[in-house]
């Protein structure tokens, strides 16, 4: 149990990347339309985020520097500002979507319209970020989010044709789909696995937890257990959806449909657990994005940030968090669909991804920062390969978004 508590930062970070509100629906959609044909993207995303989160964690452990410090240092104030603006927009759009996601999860449990829950969710979120200890938040929502493991358990109570699913792995898109929609979903799943706020949150969380050189093992355990666990949950969602919806040719576009396979497989109890899981995962992702919004702005300008100091001592940081929650909630009150909102954030993601990951890779080679902990040959090879993949995904994202009308 103690070990598990030590890696909740990694788990919570991974939840924001793999099973937040946008991903729950996107994985479910991908499963319904493509079966397991896109499962490789989730695996690729897990490896990619592991490579870069581990580098970012290593920099944090050795130099106490979170990722956005590196971005401004290596890119300079102008390109750093471009990254800040893009990264902030992705984060706040996602924050809005998560607040909507929490409200949707409560709506499914209570049947009260989700827009009525929105202001309450936004307020509770703000109170949590204002008052509650970082470690408490991280442990509570990291562990509760693991309730989404019911998606994996449900697979075994559903009637699964494993050989069909096996054949779908790596095969071309089905006749009902084109290569462009396939490409769009591939880029969307990959980009969300690598969303920049994950490394912002992970490295800042490491500073909040006071990681030292002796915490290198904790850091690695967080990365190499947390992210694969997140990826596993995402694959569980995809398999469930592929089993239940793909044969019926039903398309998935709401959270209610996403959780349906669990209810079919495990009944009412399963449904209760999955709703708890969705609630915790989206609330956890809302905390991750809310704090990340504050972290990035404060770290760009060099302000005091974090939950180790009293809010009065970090007034600018807490103002950014507060304003971001208000903006996120206001976006949702325009009745825009929270799930669609995360798709638009892809546009901003495209610009920011390479600018976020290049400085991490460069600094991870700098002996002034890391001493003997600099990247080895394998780190660098993987880092460069993934940077190229990120670049391709970034360039392809916007044309694919337009060509497919957001995956229609």
């Amino acid at each position: 149990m103690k070990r598990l508590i030590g890696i909740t930062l990694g788990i919570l970070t991974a939840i924001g990347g793999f099973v937040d509100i946008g991903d729950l629906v996107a994985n479910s959609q991908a499963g319904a339309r493509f079966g397991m044909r896109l499962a490789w993207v989730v695996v690729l995303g897990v490896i990619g985020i592991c490579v870069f989160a581990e580098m970012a964690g290593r920099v944090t452990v050795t130099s106490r520097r979170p990722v956005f410090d590196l971005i401004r240092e290596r890119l300079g104030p102008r390109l750093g500002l471009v990254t800040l603006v893009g990264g902030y927009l992705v984060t706040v759009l996602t924050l809005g979507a998560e607040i909507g996601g929490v409200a949707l999860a409560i709506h499914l449990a209570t049947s009260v319209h989700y827009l009525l829950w929105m202001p309450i969710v936004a307020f509770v979120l703000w109170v949590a970020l204002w008052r509650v200890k970082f470690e408490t938040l991280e442990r509570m929502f990291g562990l509760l989010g693991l309730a989404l493991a019911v998606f994996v358990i449900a697979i075994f109570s559903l009637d699964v044709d494993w050989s069909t699913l096996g054949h779908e792995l790596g095969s071309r898109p089905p006749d009902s789909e084109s290569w462009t929609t396939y490409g769009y979903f591939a880029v969307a799943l990959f980009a969300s696995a690598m969303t920049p706020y994950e490394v912002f949150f992970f490295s800042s969380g490491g500073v909040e937890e006071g990681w030292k050189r002796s915490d290198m093992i904790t850091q690695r355990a967080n990365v190499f257990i947390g992210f694969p666990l997140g990826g596993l949950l995402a694959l569980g969602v995809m398999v469930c959806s592929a089993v239940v919806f793909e044969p019926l040719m039903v398309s998935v576009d709401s959270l209610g449909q996403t959780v349906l396979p669990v209810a079919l497989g495990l009944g009412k109890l399963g449904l209760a657990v999955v709703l708890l899981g969705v609630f915790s995962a989206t609330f956890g992702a809302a905390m991750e994005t809310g704090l990340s919004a504050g972290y990035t702005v404060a770290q760009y300008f060099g302000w005091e940030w974090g939950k180790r100091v009293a809010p009065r001592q970090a007034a600018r940081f807490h103002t950014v968090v507060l304003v971001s929650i208000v903006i996120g909630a206001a976006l949702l009150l325009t009745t825009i669909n929270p799930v669609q909102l995360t798709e638009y954030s892809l546009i901003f993601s495209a610009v920011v991804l390479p600018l976020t990951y290049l400085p991490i890779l460069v600094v991870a080679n700098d002996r002034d920062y890391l001493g003997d902990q600099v990247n080895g040959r394998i780190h660098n090879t993987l880092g460069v390969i993934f940077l190229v993949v990120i670049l391709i995904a970034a360039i392809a994202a916007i044309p694919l978004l337009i060509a497919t009308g957001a995956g229609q």
Partner: protein
Amino acid sequence: MTNHSSSPSADTPRDASRPGTLWIDFDLLDRQIIDLAGNKLGKVDDIELVTGADGRLTVSDLLVGQSALGRRIGGWVGRCMHGIAERLRPEQDPPPLRIPFEHVTQIDSEITVGLRAELFPTPPLESWLRDKLIGRIPGARDESQ
């Protein structure tokens, strides 16, 4: 004043091939400044250079603040940043926060200054938000850790 060659701390081994040299843009600009207790003073937004009696151009102060940063960024974005910083200050022509370079005790992934943060004036945006917003919310003085 210790620098690269003379502060081989365990955490950050220095590059011995550059004895006593600093690269202004690379080693100083845009790095985090902290005091001895680890409080954050801001980023190195610009650096004041003065010509000494011997004609040498000497590093004199680290400049901190959005007005200095805005000047460096330039364009309308920079002017906005500079403008906001100016509006919040009580004085007419606000100087940026100056940290004399002789107080810098260590330069590595962050720049450590051998003075307490309390000795410096609170940045205008911070004190404005503290007085008008954050300080008025219950619990603003409590650390959550």
